[in-house]
């Protein structure tokens, strides 16, 4: 008997008991729907994190002092302070490098008149707005001359400007005090929102790094070097070049461990999404349990169905159905239940994700591979949980089955 004929028989049998069929499907619908919705929300969250990291700047490579593995002892980032402006200078000469910004941080109180605010003072270089694709809202960024002479000038983050001067006021030309020194405000950055680490990027003050090193924190080492590659394709190559240059700068012998860390945007994305990924997997796993429960529901109903339809099976066998025909019929019934349930579940999952996006402003995205997996898994559940009842049906003795009351 052809598979088409078996399909026809299975569909007819399912249509004879619509209520039971749809209730059995409900288990699959809820299971698949839950998995799809969870994966959609998780993927959406991951995408948001990716966007946040990417807002740090395109083609960004970050060089930090210290290594994750120094002489066998795993230390944290920035644990040894051996990065100096000369390192940045060497990196700047590399062919694939477009922009370089030295970074030093310190925290301080900033004061304007009666208002004061505690914030991060970010000492950096003129390339920063280009590296981070971050234009100024008011005024201008400081220039190379300011950096060279370590001028006491600053550009405020929009949040700092709002807190010191009030919202919507252009403070360009005013002076503020940082550690009892007078700084001229050159401008205000446009608003950028939360950064990759979750901190508010608008809550900081930018000054030339030379100013921070010489006049505020009095340090001679850098906290970070930001490097921007000429193209996204050359990221890995650029990162390798930067690493090579840093090793030469630091006189590290071949085979010696790096005393710095070069991190590309991709590394950062991977790092940040790892946690979200774990969460997604956990949620999808829990939802997956309901899929298994749905499968057991199918097996349960199929077993009841086989018992209830014993006489039907006996008749089919008597009029010439082979055991394999009966096996296929019941297997296909189970697979049809699970597949149709799975497809409906995918639609339900889409609906939940869409509703969460529209009404809860939650980021949600249904990945194609999750849909494909759901379909394959549904079919698998049908075959796995349908096989035992189907085999039981196929193994019936026609004489016994016909006598069954």
């Amino acid at each position, binding site marked *: 008997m052809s598979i088409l004929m078996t399909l026809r028989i299975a569909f007819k049998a399912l249509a004879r008991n619509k209520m039971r069929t749809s209730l059995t499907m409900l288990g699959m619908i809820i299971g698949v729907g839950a998995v799809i919705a969870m994966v959609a929300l998780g993927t959406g969250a991951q995408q948001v994190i990716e966007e946040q990291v990417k807002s740090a700047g395109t083609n960004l490579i970050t060089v930090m002092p210290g290594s994750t593995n120094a002489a066998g002892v795993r230390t944290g980032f920035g644990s040894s302070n051996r990065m100096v402006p000369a390192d940045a200078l060497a990196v700047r000469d590399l062919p694939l490098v477009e922009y370089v910004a030295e970074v030093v941080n310190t925290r301080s109180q900033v004061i304007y008149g009666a208002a004061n605010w505690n914030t991060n003072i970010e000492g950096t270089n003129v390339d920063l707005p280009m590296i981070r694709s971050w234009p100024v809202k008011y005024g201008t960024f400081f220039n190379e001359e300011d950096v060279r002479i370590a001028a006491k000038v600053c550009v405020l983050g929009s949040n700092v400007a709002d807190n010191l001067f009030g919202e919507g006021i252009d403070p360009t030309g005013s002076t503020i005090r940082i550690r009892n020194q007078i700084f001229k405000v050159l401008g205000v950055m446009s608003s950028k929102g939360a950064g990759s680490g979750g901190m508010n990027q608008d809550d900081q003050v930018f000054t030339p790094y030379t100013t921070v090193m010489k006049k505020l924190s009095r340090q001679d080492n850098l906290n970070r070097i930001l490097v921007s590659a000429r193209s996204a394709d050359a990221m890995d190559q650029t990162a390798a070049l930067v690493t090579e240059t840093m090793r030469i700068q630091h006189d590290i012998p071949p085979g010696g461990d790096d005393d710095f860390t070069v991190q590309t945007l991709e590394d950062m994305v991977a790092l940040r999404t790892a946690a979200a990924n774990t969460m997604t997997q956990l949620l999808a796993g829990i939802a997956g349990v309901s899929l298994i429960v749905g499968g057991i529901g199918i097996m349960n109903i199929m077993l009841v169905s086989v018992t209830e339809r014993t006489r039907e099976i006996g008749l*089919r066998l*008597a009029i*010439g159905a082979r055991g394999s025909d009966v096996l296929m019929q019941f297997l296909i019934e189970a697979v049809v239940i699970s597949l149709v349930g799975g497809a409906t579940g995918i639609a339900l999952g889409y609906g939940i994700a869409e509703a969460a996006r529209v009404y809860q402003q939650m980021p949600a995205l249904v990945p194609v591979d999750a849909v494909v997996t759901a379909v394959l898994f549904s079919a698998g559940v049908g075959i796995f949980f349908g096989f035992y009842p189907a085999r039981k049906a196929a193994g019936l003795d026609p004489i016994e089955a016909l006598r069954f009351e």
Partner: protein
Amino acid sequence: MPVISVRDLTKVYKMGDYEVRALRGVSLDIEPGEFVAVTGPSGSGKSTFMHITGCLDRPTSGDYILDGRDVSRLSKDDLARVRNQKIGFVFQGFNLLSRTTALDNVELPLLYNGKNGLRTSERHKRALAVLDAVGLGERQHHMPNQLSGGQQQRVAIARALINEPSIILADEPTGNLDTRTSIEVMGIFQRLNIERKITVLLITHEADIAEYGTRLIRFRDGRVVADQPVKHRRDAEDELAALPPPEPDLIPHPDEEHKGADQAS
């Protein structure tokens, strides 16, 4: 050439430590066109005989030649094929699929006959032809629960006919029917037997039903104890004509019933 030829047929069932010898050496021939009634008390082996001749079971020993082919040693799947092609079953309990139209019920054996080339329209045509043969062509779209017991049994007979089998095996076909309907159903068997020369093997424990056949075989304790022609054969058609018309309350007029069924659905 006999359509059924069995030689020294035995069947032994093992029930725990016991052995039940259901058949203890049965030999007989049935010629094409015969209407054989098989009777005997319960436990006589007539059911076992029917299961083996119906290819639902295999004998422990002995030979069974059906239509010139030895089927006593066939595999399960081959037996299924023989059942589909050579044998039409009619059961006491009708065994129609519920919530399935008369037409679909009749078509069922065609789905298993291995000829995938049979188109839906061709299947419908053949199913309708056999439904017409049992006088139920107009009821093709009725569900079993919209049909009387006699009509259901006629659908079952149509289903048995659809693959043009060599024999029809009827196992207590009137067991669930009242007297009048029983006569009607036996009338159909007699008509098919005479008009289409179909061999009928009727299993019954009712002596009067057995008298509709041409030949009577009696089983007892797993053996054939009597095998003789029926002396005073009953003719269902004559009896039906002699009966008073059906009481309207019990068997509604076909047209009225038709309307009733339409309203119910």
